[in-house]
């Protein structure tokens, strides 16, 4: 009962926020709707025993990424409403809606057809047994850390390289060109 209630409320948050992102004409409102969706996804993560990822979802997505979006909106001063009545191509929106419904139908059909399919489990399990029996409270973090730092340790190290490259690249993109370089960049 409780699980059903949590799912329904979180699903309403996710879908309501997602629709808000694409129908609100003001970028700030869209970003706030995005936060609603991200929190709903975090709740669903908790319901699926992914406690650590739920925390990361709130901290990184809702905390950092959306703040970055809002920061850019304010920085650029583009926080004026976009006129949603303008439709550059005549049949763009009907086609987009048709493609969206089509993809949704395809995925749902695939999910329903493969619902009873048997799957082989090869990886490590979600549960970490406590020494005295039962389950650990922080078993999710332990299991995730064990998998991350044993099977995927190289990929984990590579993410640090990726983040450094992203930071350096963004600084290069965002800085103002110096006087000597001005003509070159304008050309």
């Amino acid at each position, binding site marked *: 009962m409780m699980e059903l209630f949590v799912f329904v409320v979180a699903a309403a948050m996710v879908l309501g926020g997602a629709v808000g*992102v694409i129908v609100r004409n003001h970028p700030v409102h869209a970003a706030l709707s995005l936060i609603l969706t991200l929190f709903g996804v975090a709740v669903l993560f908790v319901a699926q025993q992914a406690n650590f990822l739920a925390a990361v979802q709130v901290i990184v*997505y809702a905390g950092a990424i959306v703040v970055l979006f809002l920061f850019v909106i304010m920085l650029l001063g583009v926080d004026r409403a976009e006129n949603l009545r303008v439709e550059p191509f005549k049949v763009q929106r009907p086609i987009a809606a048709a493609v969206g419904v089509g993809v949704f139908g395809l995925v749902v059909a695939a999910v329903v057809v493969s619902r009873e399919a048997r799957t082989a489990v090869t990886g490590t399990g*979600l549960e970490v047994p406590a020494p005295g029996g039962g389950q650990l409270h922080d078993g999710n973090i332990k299991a995730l850390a064990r998998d991350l730092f044993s099977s995927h340790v190289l990929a984990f190290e590579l993410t640090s390289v990726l983040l450094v490259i992203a930071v350096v690249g963004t600084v290069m993109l965002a800085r103002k060109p110096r006087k000597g370089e001005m003509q070159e960049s304008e050309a």
Partner: protein
Amino acid sequence: MIASIHPTTTWYLILAAALFSIGMVGVMVRRNPLVLFMCVELMLNAVNLTFVAMARKLGDIGGQTTVFFVMVVAAAEVVVGLGIIVAILRRRPNATTDDLAELKG
């Protein structure tokens, strides 16, 4: 009656499909580059939800590990993408995606 219903993995997958479709429609319809980015985030979150649901169904922590990496890459992607958007919009304020055809051959 209602108390006996439990949300199964199928429910989560269908919800993720709906979220992905909404994000995709947003990418096709909206013209503000910032809102386009938010719609891409919606699609990434839908895929993350699928991974977590399947991780629970299969009892395999590997799905959650994948979501961890997806989040790292998404953070890097947002940083670089917003840097590009700032660089573009600083030069041409009020540009929409229709105006940004400079790379066209």
